[in-house]
């Protein structure tokens, strides 16, 4: 690899800083008492504590998955902090938010109050596991949309939460989902009632702040009959040396004719150039197209984390329902990503579309892993998958692991895959037209990712382009 290219892909992480806010922190380790503490801190009803304890007891019987194509030292779950919260404050408006927190967002380029107002985005800010500000709640309430932290939802809308929580990702679904179900501290809750088109894009900015505090977010989004919503999740984290475990669970439920679009830009700290530190991002995201003609679309731009283990999936239960997965996963230095999707076709004439773009640089390892399953009753089901990999340099790796299981003869499943390389010749061609290496790499990468970026909401697409720029070059083309 040319030295210019080497230099470009090795720009340091630019969001590394720590906000000093006093945290109320649980002792390290996990046992039933810690779970009772979390539940008590949140004034939860008995049924939720029972759910947590059940999940915990199940988790104790489970083993960490060994099949992902990633390597990391064994996690000491007794050395993790499972609860940490800023000192409770009563906030009447955004003005009362800790100025230091606001400055943090400034540094991230997310002046959230202005941004929220200008862009018409309601931002439910998750800051170290507890929501400290919720905006536009009023406006949403006028049309009956509920958008709040899951703790508030448990308190204010217990029946809704109880009806849907754990129905898409059961507490014992997998190792990390079970852990999350036992200890989740906060997250977002959205409910879009029958026939309502959510009047604005809903957005959450996540940020992990306390050193070595595990983050166990729980998100639940429900779109009733004919409802639609677009949800944006953006993440970034300060720089730390020790690994941080993040095991979130996101559940989506779409009833008849409902439409949920879930977009993520993830830029958590990836560790340093030697592979020390960085977030372990072990996430379970799944959407259930429960009703006929429903649609769930996942779009993700994954650029951060030391390890990503994540398969946003769709269970296509309702007839004619549609699942989509659009993904860009970029790894650099020693990052490892094993990410993809599962499309489970159960209903008739269900359709799914998978577009995955993996970019590997440095000594990183990037795997696509995807399952397309067509059930016996899924007459006329169709799937199209395209998995493209791009390599930058010679020390990185890219893998594609497609799993296809078809139990219905009328199904049509297509899979396409390509691998390409940003080479000296491509950069020379652009240089010969006056275009410098930074802009050239940016242009090639953005072209490669175009099919995915087109799926993102406008301002998010800009942010995604910017992130890829930061990760690979330090400037945007």
């Amino acid at each position, binding site marked *: 690899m040319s030295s210019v290219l080497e230099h470009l892909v090795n720009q340091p992480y630019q969001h590394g800083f720590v906000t000093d806010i006093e945290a109320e922190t649980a002792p390290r380790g996990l046992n039933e008492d810690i779970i009772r503490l979390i539940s008590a801190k949140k004034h939860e009803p008995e049924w939720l504590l029972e759910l947590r304890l059940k999940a915990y007891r199940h988790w104790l019987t489970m083993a960490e998955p060994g099949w992902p194509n990633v390597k990391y030292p064994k996690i000491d779950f007794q050395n993790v902090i499972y609860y940490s919260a800023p000192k409770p404050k009563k906030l009447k408006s955004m003005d009362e938010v800790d100025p230091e927190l606001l400055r943090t967002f400034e540094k991230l380029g997310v002046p959230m109050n202005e941004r929220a107002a200008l862009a018409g985005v309601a931002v439910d800010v998750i800051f170290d596991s507890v929501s400290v500000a919720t905006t536009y709640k009023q406006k949403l309430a006028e049309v009956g949309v509920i958008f709040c932290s899951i703790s508030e939802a448990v308190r204010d809308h217990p029946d809704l939460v109880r009806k849907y929580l754990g129905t898409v990702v059961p507490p014992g679904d997998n190792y990390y989902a079970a852990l999350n179900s036992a200890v989740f501290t906060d997250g977002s809750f959205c409910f879009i009632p029958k026939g309502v088109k959510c009047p604005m894009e809903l957005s959450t900015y996540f940020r992990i702040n306390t050193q070595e505090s595990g983050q166990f977010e729980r998100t639940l989004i429900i779109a009733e009959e004919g409802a639609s919503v677009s949800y944006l999740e953006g993440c970034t984290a300060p720089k730390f040396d020790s690994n941080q475990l993040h095991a979130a669970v996101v559940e989506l439920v779409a009833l008849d004719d409902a439409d949920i679009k879930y977009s993520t830009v993830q830029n958590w700290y990836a560790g340093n150039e030697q592979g020390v530190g960085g977030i372990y991002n072990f996430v379970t995201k799944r959407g259930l197209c429960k009703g006929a003609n429903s649609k769930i679309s996942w779009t993700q731009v994954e650029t951060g984390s030391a390890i990503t283990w994540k398969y946003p999936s769709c269970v296509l239960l309702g007839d004619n329902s549609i699942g989509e997965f659009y993904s860009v996963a970029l790894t650099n230095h020693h990052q490892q990503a094993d990410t993809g999707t599962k499309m489970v076709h159960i209903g008739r004439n269900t359709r799914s579309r998978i577009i995955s773009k993996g970019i590997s640089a440095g000594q990183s390892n990037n795997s696509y892993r995807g399952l397309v399953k067509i059930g016996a009753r899924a007459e006329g089901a169709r799937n199209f998958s395209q998995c493209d990999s791009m390599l930058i340099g010679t020390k990185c790796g890219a893998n594609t692991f497609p799993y296809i299981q078809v139990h219905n003869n009328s199904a049509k499943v297509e899979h396409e895959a390509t691998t390409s390389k940003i080479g000296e010749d491509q950069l020379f061609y652009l240089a010969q*037209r006056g275009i410098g290496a930074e802009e050239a790499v940016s242009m090639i990468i953005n*072209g490669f990712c175009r099919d995915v970026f087109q799926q993102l909401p406008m301002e998010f697409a800009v942010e995604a382009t910017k992130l890829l720029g930061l990760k690979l070059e330090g400037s945007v083309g």
Partner: protein
Amino acid sequence: MTRADAKVLLEVKGLHANVAGVEILKGIDLVVRAGEVHAIMGPNGSGKSTFAKALAGHPAYEVTAGTATFEGRNIFDMAAEERARAGLFLGFQYPLEIPGVSNAAFLRLAYNTVQGARGKDELDPLEFDDYVREKMKLLEMDASFLDRSVNDGFSGGEKKRNEILQMALLEPRLAILDETDSGLDIDALRVVSGGVNRLLTRDNAVVLVTHYQRLLNYIVPDYVHVMEGGRIIKTGGRELAVELEARGYDWLKGKVAA
């Protein structure tokens, strides 16, 4: 259009260059003045394309001896993009594909970068659209070229037209066209060479790298150079190309070996 008093654009002296440790260029001398058309001919493997790429600054080509100046500046002190901005253009034998990037976006970025480097105004997308469409008429290119990804899925002829379109936009002082005629049918050859001819002025120059004298029926050279074994072994006028067409390259080899 050769004039002895014309400004020297390119002056190459004793150029040696390696590719992967193997010496390919073994001492090349060449002077190109404003207003001139040069043709470099020679059999496969004689070093023609290597010479073109070394001048343009391809990182895989290591210059081991000799000098080259472009308008008086030592080009080996300049990165490839600086040479391009200074007005040295290479038309590629195999233009590269950039999937997902629209030709319009690519052309505009190239145009604005070069304009900016020359202290001239950049164009916004709308202004550029008008400008590029004018240039495309020159090459009888359809407007759909703008929306397609750069060279992606282009036929050989389309790629070559796209190269000359870039030349038209960037207005180089010196254009080195590497095998621009290969893969062109007779109609495309007429259009492409017509485009090149219209871009020629008394202030710029073109170096054509080609196997065949066919191209030289359309773009008439002032000088024809024959390369063999990494050297220019013979230089003549247009009639040399005609003679090569008739007799091949072999008759030169024994004569000039030195």
